[in-house]
């Protein structure tokens, strides 16, 4: 098969050819979707995630920012759940439910952004390590190995102390410490792809490194990276809460991690305010589980040898 390279960018003249490529792609996407739907737990995870993301997006409507302004609050401090505040109130009298919804925004933002950072670094380094040979490869491999073995949490702690507090810091810290796994997967996949005959033919036709990577390797590794990414989001959400727990988070933005931290710091656990301790924790468990289920489902769809797991 000749590589369908570059056609999408010129959609005017060679119309029939594009349609074939696009249609094949659409068809493949449809297949993936159908296979994904047949994985019940993955589907449940996806639906729950969609709901959570929806809630997070609708936060300003569901719980207007004013409801979190402590100077205008009428509810008592640390109130148990009631009809007015279904998940009780925090030590400042804010509704825990409202905070949970707002917290979803930051937690998911951290999760997705950190994963994006990790995915980009991981994919680039992984593809380069697989594609190039000699010194470049050796150096990159050592780099990957190093990040793979250094205790991630310790490194993240160091990073976040250096850059200073804030959501960006957490994103960077998590991103930088979690890309090595992705890089390793991408590298193996790159090696597999590049050993195929059509790549050799491309080489023979004088294709450049950039061309091969962009047109052949990247599309081939992307599905695997995506599945892996979904799993990483879950890890990042947990990592955010762990960093917050260790006092390296950003207390001034409400996230599930910073809520838990505040709950523990103010003694909510022993004070008996279970609604404040359990709600953010359960939210994290639920969302992380959903990401894991979706990730596994995606993976088994993309990598047929894993089917049935």
């Amino acid at each position: 098969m000749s590589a369908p390279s570059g056609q999408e960018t010129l959609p005017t003249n060679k119309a029939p050819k594009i349609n074939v490529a696009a249609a094949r792609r659409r068809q493949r996407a449809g297949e993936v979707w159908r296979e994904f739907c047949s994985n019940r737990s993955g589907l449940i995870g996806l639906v729950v995630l969609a709901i959570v993301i929806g809630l997070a997006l609708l936060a300003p409507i569901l719980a207007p920012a004013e409801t979190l302004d402590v100077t205008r609050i009428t509810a008592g401090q640390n109130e148990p759940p009631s009809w007015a505040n279904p998940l009780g109130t925090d030590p400042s009298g804010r509704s825990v439910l409202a905070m949970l919804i707002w917290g979803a925004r930051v937690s998911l933002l951290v999760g997705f952004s950190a994963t994006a950072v990790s995915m980009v670094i991981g994919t680039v380094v992984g593809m380069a390590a697989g594609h190039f040979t000699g010194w470049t490869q050796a150096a990159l491999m050592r780099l990957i190995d190093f990040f793979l073995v250094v205790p991630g949490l310790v490194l993240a702690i160091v990073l976040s102390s250096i850059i200073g507090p804030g959501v960006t810091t957490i994103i960077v810290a998590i991103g930088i410490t979690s890309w090595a796994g992705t890089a390793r997967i991408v590298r193996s996949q790159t090696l597999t792809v590049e050993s195929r005959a059509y790549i050799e033919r491309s080489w023979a036709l004088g294709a450049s490194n950039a061309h091969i990577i962009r047109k052949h390797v990247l599309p081939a590794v992307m599905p695997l990276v995506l599945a892996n990414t979904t799993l990483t989001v879950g890890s990042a959400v947990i990592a955010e809460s762990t960093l917050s727990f260790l006092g390296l988070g950003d207390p001034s933005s409400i996230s599930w991690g910073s809520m838990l931290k505040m709950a523990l710091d103010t003694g909510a656990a022993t004070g008996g305010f279970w609604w404040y301790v359990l709600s953010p924790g359960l939210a994290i468990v639920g969302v992380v589980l959903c990401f894991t289920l979706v990730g596994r489902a995606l993976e088994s769809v993309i990598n047929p040898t894993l089917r049935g797991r």
Partner: protein
Amino acid sequence: MSASQLVGAETAKDLDEPGRGTSWLRYVAMKAGGSLFSLVMVVLLGFFAFRILPGDPVRSLADGRQVTAEQMDILRKQYGLDQPVIAQFWRYLTDLFRGNLGDSYTYNRPVMELILDRLGPTLLLTGTAAALSVVLGLWLGQRTAWRRGSMFDKAHTGIALTLWSVPTFWLGLLMLLIFGGTLHWFPTGGMVTAGSTATGLAYVWDVARHLTLPMLTMVAVVYAQYLMVMRASLLEEMSADYLVTARAKGLREDQVRRKHAVPNALLPTVTLIFLTLGGLIGGAVTVETVFSWPGLGYLTFQALSAPDFPLLQGTFVVFSSIVIIMNFFADILYRVLDPRLRTA
């Protein structure tokens, strides 16, 4: 702990790396070289990363206390902080070669001594947790794989994945509140009963009781990855031709499993176990904090808040070296175990 470990076989060492034809010697040399490189990186990073940490250690020591400017100057001189960074680096390197990690600012004691003090408890905690979760994970992994699609499989995969999604410190706190505070089954923290002078069996018993909650917390969160990898690689093995042959020869199912499938499936899992040890040790930071466990993880965290450069460097170098060396062994072990590589 990286998420990708839940994916399974891919994360295990890729087979293509040191080609099958390479000789033993070359293989070991390559791996040793890689480990050495990582160690050097750790040593460099250990020094320079912490130097750019914000915060004047001396001013932090003086925080909120009656300290004169002269006193602070004396301290800076004592710690060598008045010298240029490059001179400090040279001192760090030369000391390191003599096995000296410097003196801690906060504790006024050699870092090596402090680390050795806490290394035991950390190894005890992570060691028992690792052993139990590996055993639990592998056992459940092979059973779930063998009975794929059954209620047993679904329930265990579900439980494992759910526990894997729990933030460790939060689970630890709940365990502490439930089993320590409310039910009074276990002590609420520490490694031995305070002030106890017990020795011998009584001491072991005391430590075991203190160890239970932190260890179970760690096990609950990490065993899922072993379960998943074992399950995945066993499933892969089970579709292999030789098993069909084995069955055809009339071997009983559990013999097929025990003699053929499981040993082969263990291979990718072993490497993974070594790879995850780093994550385990890192995870000890939060568990140690929740359960007041007198270990290395908590020491690291304490050192950060000072910031106590020598102590930070020391714990970082020790932590990372343990993992790097473990990894090196994993590579060697892999070579020893993998029949395909061995024949070369």
